[in-house]
Each structure stands twice: as structure tokens, then as C-alpha cells.
């Protein structure tokens, strides 16, 4: 019961902060709202015993990526006149919501109607570093290596992109 209440609060917080994020005019507001959302999601991870994911989410997303975004926003010194002139922003949001709504509603409908839960009882230490690490380096070693290459490529790409113009 306790879990359900925590979940409800966190979910509400996530949804509200996400909505704030997509509708805020200034990017800095969005980014701050997004941090809230990300931390809430990390908390939701923790709620289902995914401790390692909880840590990763906090460190990488809320820590690394979001700080990078904030750094960039400040670095670029974005002023109001640099922001796009979004007069019809709210209409767009509303319209797109109406388009997306059926999609979401249908999916929710399907989820509610179907019985997808298995409720297997987790073993001891599920979701901690050891468990995830073992799975990662035994079953998923090839994708892991590929991702490392991807990261390398992204690194090189980012450097060249940023360097060429300067």
C-alpha cells in the first residue's frame, strides 16, 4: 500500500514536470523541469528494486546529460530574441495532443484489459550491480562492445562537428 502511494505521487510529479518541460517557453525552465522528471523516474526505478538503474539514472541523466544541457544553455548565452517566436505554441500542443491521444488511450486500454503481469519472485540481490554486471558481461557482451564503439564514434563526431565551425 505504501508503495502504491509513493508510486502515485512520483507518477503525478513526473507527468506534471514533463508537461511543464514541453510547454515552458525558455529552455532553462524546461531543463529544470526535466531534471525533476528524471529524478522521479530514478525514484520509480528504485521502487522496483532496480538499484543499479536508480544509480545510473541519477548519475548519467540527472548528473551528466542534464548538466551538459544546462552548461550549453548558459554557454550559448541564449537571449529571448534568440528563441523561436512560438505564438501558436499552445495551439500546436493542443492539436498534437489530440492526435496523439487516441494512440495513448488505445494503448492504455489494451494494457488495462490484458493481463500482462507475471509476478515472478525475484532472487536475492536482484537489480544490484553484481546481478546486472553479470548479465551484461555474459549474455550481452557483444552489444556492450558495440555500444562502446558507438560512444567512441559519437565522441569523434561531436568533436569534429564542433571544431569545424570554430
Amino acid at each position, binding site marked *: 500500500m505504501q508503495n502504491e502511494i509513493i508510486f502515485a505521487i512520483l507518477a503525478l510529479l513526473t507527468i506534471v514536470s514533463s508537461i511543464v518541460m514541453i510547454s515552458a517557453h525558455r529552455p532553462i525552465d524546461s531543463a529544470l523541469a526535466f531534471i525533476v522528471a528524471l529524478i522521479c523516474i530514478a525514484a520509480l526505478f528504485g521502487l522496483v528494486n532496480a538499484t543499479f538503474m536508480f544509480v545510473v539514472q541519477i548519475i548519467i541523466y540527472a548528473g551528466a546529460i542534464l548538466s551538459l544541457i544546462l552548461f550549453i544553455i548558459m554557454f550559448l548565452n541564449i537571449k529571448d530574441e534568440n528563441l523561436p517566436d512560438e505564438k501558436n505554441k499552445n495551439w500546436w500542443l493542443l492539436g498534437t495532443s489530440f492526435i496523439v491521444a487516441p494512440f495513448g488511450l*488505445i494503448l492504455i486500454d489494451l494494457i488495462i484489459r490484458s493481463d500482462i503481469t507475471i509476478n515472478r519472485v525475484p532472487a536475492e540481490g536482484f537489480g544490484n550491480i553484481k546481478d546486472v554486471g553479470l548479465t551484461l558481461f555474459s549474455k550481452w557482451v557483444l552489444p556492450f562492445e558495440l555500444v562502446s564503439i558507438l560512444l567512441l564514434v559519437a565522441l569523434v563526431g561531436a568533436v569534429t562537428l564542433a571544431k569545424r565551425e570554430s
Partner: protein
Amino acid sequence: MSDSLILNILLLSPLLSATLIFLLNISISGVKQYIYTSLALAGSGISALLALYLSYFSYFENQVFTSHLFTWLSIEDFIVEVALKADALSSFMILFIAPVSFLIHVYASGYMNKDKSYGRFFAYFNLFIFFMFLLVLADNPIIMFIGWEGVGLTSYALIGFYFEDIKNTYAGNKAFIANRVGDFGFLSALMLLFLEIGSGGMSFDAILSNIGQIEAPMLSLIAFLLFVGAMGKSAQIPLFVWLPDAMAGPTPVSALIHAATMVTAGVYMVARFAPLYNLTFDVSLFIAYIGAFSALFAAIVATRQFDIKKILAYSTMSQLGFMFMALGVGAYSTALFHMFTHAFFKALLFMGAGAIIVAFHHKQDIRELRGIKESMPALFVMILIATLTISAIPPLSAFFSKDAIMSALYASGHAPLFLMAFTASLLTVFYMFRLVFVVFYSNTKQVGEANSKSMLYPMTVLTIFSIFAGLLNMPEIFGGNLNMSNWLDIADKKFIVTHFDELMLMSINTLAIIGVIFYTYKRYAYTNTIDKESEHTLVANKFYIDEIYSAVVVKPLYALSILFDKHISNNLIDNTIHNLALYYEKLGLLFSGFENGNVRNYALYMLVGAVSGFIYLYVLLRAAL
């Protein structure tokens, strides 16, 4: 020599000489003139000799020469042999065509002397003779049609011979187009003829013996269409317009093609189909009336012409009208007889005119050619004899032939025809003597260059022919026995005229003619009447027939052409197509607005698509859930 070989040589020697001259002319420049002359004269001379030989055997021994060259076409029943056949009629035709051609060749070698296109002229000339022989000797109408078109083609080339003046070539175009309108009729008739009775063979004998199988209306149609061909070639109303303009060609051309030979092809063709016309009285009568109108019309127009060659051209048309009158009432051999005499005296007249024209440096207006009697007495005598002949003064040849036509018309019982013919023949006398008196009997005097002998000798020969050619078909009344009619053995209608009537007719006719000569003498000899005649009257302008044709036929055709090309093709059809393409392009622009480069818009389209697909699937699968 075998029969067929003679025919083949007769036909092909002009072609051969034409080809040789042509190749020489086109490949080597500066060939000596005498080479052309000898080639040309050899070509026409050989065929003239052979023609005489042929006619001799045909006349005295009733021999029929045939020759089969090769099969032209053979598709199912449509079998056309290139076969030659010289029966009595064909022999008769070549009897005057070949010698007259030869004489005019000789004449032309003088007339065209020093002309820069000497070789080309004789190439065309010999080619013409070839086609004319083909026309006359062909054993079936399809080959005859080839000859028929061929003479038209060479005539086109010769009328426009001096092509530096584009007007001459327009005259040639006019001639060919008018002829082709006639050929349209001729060809249609041949096709119908074949479809009706062609399976029995396409030779003249086969056709004429099967002709009874055709039903009456179709037969009349065929007869009429054949005559349309004759109208074109023989310059009858309404297809005569080309003949006066055809005088643009060199004078030997006018003498040979537009007086003696080609224009008479229509007469020959109708005579050839005599059994057909004997079955179709209505068409025959139509022919007779067309002939009568043409004769009268041409005679009237000729009385107010000033160009010496135009006068002769209208005279030719008028005389052809006489022949068609005779054909129309069924007196075929009479018509042919007139054609025979006409060939000589009309050729002579043209050659005389040509001699005058050469002597006076291409002056053709009779008002400028006055008083030339003293300077060229021989020419004067010959032209006078020819004029007397055409006026049908006894005992010159045309007297017999024209009188035979008159009595046939009289006996046929068609009074209007007879009256028109009578008027036309008196008008003939009038305009011919007008020409003679104006040119030769004048107070002023002119001296021209002397004519070459090669021009005068052929004329002398023709003068003799003009005088004596009548002997060939002397009527009974003068102790003759109609040799020619018996020889030709055409299905003539027999007209019974009493000797008294015939004598009366002749004497009235002759008296009237002499009266007209005197009137003309009074009016034109040593006077200035001719200068007072206006060039702007209705008659002098040929009743504005050319202008009417232009307004009724030519201009509407060009208007139609503009309508078709500019309005229908371009504006209607092509613009519709272009507009279709344009609207298509507009539609494309409409859609290209969606592709604006904003990736988030693309995402929106994707989303819309995905969502609608999703909804569709959901609705579809709802039942299963």
C-alpha cells in the same frame, strides 16, 4: 523482227534516249549540242519509222501486234500485265503521234538552239513520247493510266521548263493539279471497273466484252468517272483552266503536248471505251454537251485574246470540244478523224507561232507583231493554209473531218448541240482570221530574224499533211469509202444522212465561213480595230473563271488549312494537352508544400499515419479482444 520486238523497240527507244540524255546532262557539263540532238532524233526517229511500219501492216493486213513484257502486279484476281497491243485504234494513234513527234523534235532542235538547258529539254521531250506511247499502246487500263499520269508529269516539267520565272512553275503546278483531279476520276473508275468485272481479266478486250454484266447505274458512274479523267487531260469545262497557262512552256512543247498529242488522250480514251459509252446514253449526252459548251466557251474567249499562243490554246480547247461532241453522239471514228487532222494543222499553227516568236525575240502579243508578211513569206503561206484548214475550207483536210462532225450532230437530232457547234465553228473562223489579218495584213512593217531550216522543213511537211490528211477518210459523197472508219472498226453509231442534206449542210457551212472571213477582213485587215479592243472586258478576262476558281476552291482550302493547323491542332488539341500538363504541375505544387524541410512536420505526418493505422488496427482487432 518479231512483232513484239518491234513494239518494244518502238516503246523503249524514246525512253532509252531520254535516259541517256538525262545521264549525260546531269553528270557531265558542257556536252556538245549535236550529241543531244542526234540522240533525241534517233530516239524519236526510230519510233516514228516503226510506227509507220506498224500502221502499214495494221491498215492493209489488219495485223494486230502484241507484246508481253512482264507482270506488273498479281494479287488474287488483280493481275496487271505490262502488255502492249497495237490494234487498229492504237496503230492509228501512233500513226500520227510518232511522226508529228519526230517533226516537232526536228523543229525543236532549231527552236531551242543555243539554249542552256538544251539537253534537259530533249530528255523530257523523249520521256514524254515514251509515256504517250505507253498510254496509247497499253493493253490494259492500269498501264494506260501510268502512261496517262506520266504524260501529265512530263507536261508539268516542260511547262515549268524555264523555272527561273516562278510563274512558269506555277502554271505547271496548275496543269498537274487539274490533271490529277481528272486522274482521280479515272483511277476511281478503273477500280470500280475491276471490282465489277475484273476477275475476267484487266485487258481491254476482256473488259469490253464483259461490260454487259455491270448494272446500269454503276455503269453510268464508271462512264462518268472515266470522262472526268478525259476532262482533265483534254481541257474541257470545268477542268480546262490549266491549258491557257500551260503556254508558259517553250513553243515546241505547246505544239506537241498541248495541241497534237497529250490533250487528245481524253478523246482516245473515250473512243477506247466506246462499247461502254454506247451503253450509257445519258453520260454520252453529257459528254456531248460538255464538249459543246467547251467549244463555244473557248471560241468566245479566243476572240478577245491578244497573246498569240493563248489564242491557239483556246482554239485547241475548242477543237477538242468538237471532238467530244462527236464522241458524245456516238460518232467515234469521226472524232478520231478530226483529232488526226487537228494534230497536223494545230501543230503547224503552233510551230508557225513559235517561228514568229523566235524571229521577234519572244514577243507574243499580236498587237506588237503587226506587218510581218513581207519578211517571212514562207511562214505566211503555211500559217494561212493552216488557218484555212482549221476554218474547214474545202478541200483541205479539216473540211472533211469537221463536216463529218457537223453531219453527225445534225443527224443525231440534238438541235442545241448542232447550233452550238455551228456557232463555235464560225467563231473559230473569226478568231483565227483575226489573228492572221492582224499579224500579216497591216500598214506597219517589221522585219524579224530568219528562221533556221530545221524549223521550216518540218513545217513544210506538216503543211502537206494538213492539206491531204483528209484523204484518209473521204466520205462516200466525194467518192471515198471511209477507209479510216472501216479500219478502226469502232462500234460507231450509224447516222443516215441523205446526200442532199449533206450537200446542203456543206454549202451553207462553207458560205457562212466565207462570209465570216470577209467580215473579219473588213474589220481587222489594215485597220486599227485591234488596238481599240479593251483588255478588260468580261470575255478578255476569260469570264473571270480563274478568279472564281481561286475564290471558290483555292482560298477556302487555305482557310481550311489555317483552321486545321492553327485552330484545331494547336489551339484545341495541343493546348488541351499542355493545359493538362500544367494542371498536373499545379497539383504537384500543392503537394510539394507539405515537403517543406521541417523535420518535425515530417514527424507529424508520420505520426498521423501511424496513429490512423493504429486506430484502424484497433477497430479491426477489437472483436478479438
